[in-house]
């Protein structure tokens, strides 16, 4: 006999062991939302009903923890994130190397590397400002509520980053906010958030994202500009009569026979970068999952 919603959620969590962490988080917040809404309605209709009896009636309709867990597992098996669908494996090494252009995940990673620069700068400023002001405001009465707001914003940003990671990198991330006990006083909520490993990992992620974002952005712009320059050399020399290296009045011209080599070099460089980006994207996704999703 399940006595409280918290107990149901604990049991559901146990039942879901081994499933994707993001699925678990979704299932828990769905169950919490439903059970609380149902309980509130039932209490309104029958004020003198015992909570335990009400709950057992509600759970009977909602499904036992094991029934609910199997429903999620079933649907999860059928739906895989858009980008996680396996591309048909090309046979040769070359096919694999150039096949990167048809791989949605590689393009997603390239886009993510670009966006990571912007989000990284934002996360970093947010985390530094939030932490610094929370600590210094701790001297005043309003310091603690301020810290609570900051921690809550970190949770929100972690969820947002998760959506970005799932959309672009194809790594399954939570779609619902982490469930928390509702009836807590704000001070207890703050204590809970401060003690939670997840909060600090998310803040750490915000710092790391700044460094990684900068590296990704540099890699992206360097690769893109070098590749384009190589490809452009024949056109610059033939159409505009300029040398490929210009040092004051000295111009160096590449011989005509080398044109295909430059173009090929440029294309290969970009292809290498695309392959690199695909790998980086997968690694980054794994890191984000480890740091932003609670187990």
């Amino acid at each position, binding site marked *: 006999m399940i006595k409280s919603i918290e107990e149901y959620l604990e049991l559901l969590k146990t039942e879901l062991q081994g499933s994707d962490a993001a699925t678990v988080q*979704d*299932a828990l*917040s*769905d*169950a*919490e*939302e*439903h059970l*609380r*809404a*149902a309980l*509130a*309605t039932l209490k309104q209709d029958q004020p003198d009903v015992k909570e335990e009896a009400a709950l057992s009636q509600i759970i009977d*309709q*909602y*499904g036992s923890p094991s*029934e*609910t867990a199997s*429903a*999620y597992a*079933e*649907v*999860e098996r*059928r*739906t895989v*994130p*858009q980008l996680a669908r396996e591309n048909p494996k090309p046979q040769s090494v070359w096919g694999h190397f150039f096949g990167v252009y048809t791989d949605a995940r590689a393009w997603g990673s390239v886009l993510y590397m670009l966006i990571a620069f912007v989000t990284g700068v934002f996360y970093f400023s947010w985390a530094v400002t939030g932490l610094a002001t929370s600590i210094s405001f701790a001297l005043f009465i309003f310091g603690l509520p301020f810290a609570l707001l900051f921690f809550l914003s970190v949770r929100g940003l972690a969820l947002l980053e998760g959506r970005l990671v799932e959309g672009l990198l194809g790594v399954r991330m939570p*779609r*619902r*906010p982490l*469930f928390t006990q*509702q009836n807590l006083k704000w001070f207890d909520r703050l204590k809970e958030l401060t003690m939670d490993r997840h909060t600090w990992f998310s803040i750490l992620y915000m710092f790391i994202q700044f460094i990684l974002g900068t590296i990704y952005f540099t890699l992206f712009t360097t690769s893109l500009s070098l590749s384009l320059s190589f490809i452009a050399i024949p056109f610059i020399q033939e159409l505009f009569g300029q040398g490929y290296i210009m040092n004051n009045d000295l111009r160096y011209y590449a011989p005509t026979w080398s044109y295909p080599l430059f173009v090929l070099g440029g294309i290969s460089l970009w292809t290498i970068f695309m392959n690199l980006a695909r790998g980086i994207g997968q690694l980054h996704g794994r890191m984000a999952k480890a740091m932003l999703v609670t187990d």
Partner: protein
Amino acid sequence: MVDTPTLTKKFQKELNAGIASLVLLSVLDKTRKPMYGYQIAKLLEEYSGDASFMKQGALYPVLHSLENGGLLESNVEPSVSGPPRRYYAITSEGRETLVVWQGVWKQMKSFVDKAIKGA
């Protein structure tokens, strides 16, 4: 010995797998306003009467997968009592898909009816 209740349960579950999507899309198409999970479950309870076809908890993963496929959209709104609620609404793609699915269902239904009656 044939374990009829277990087999029936399994049969019901397999039937539900596809029908739940059609039912949820239809409900959200009819109401024309966003609804949250518990509201949808209550409405379905009214439709099904005493017979309960599926557990309410099984509706949520289907809602997620419909949203994932772009047929539904959702947003979270705070509620006066309890945790914030996720409201689901049908998208225009969802409406188009629903028309197709209703067609499929109609054909399916007449096919099954004929098979059962042996017309």
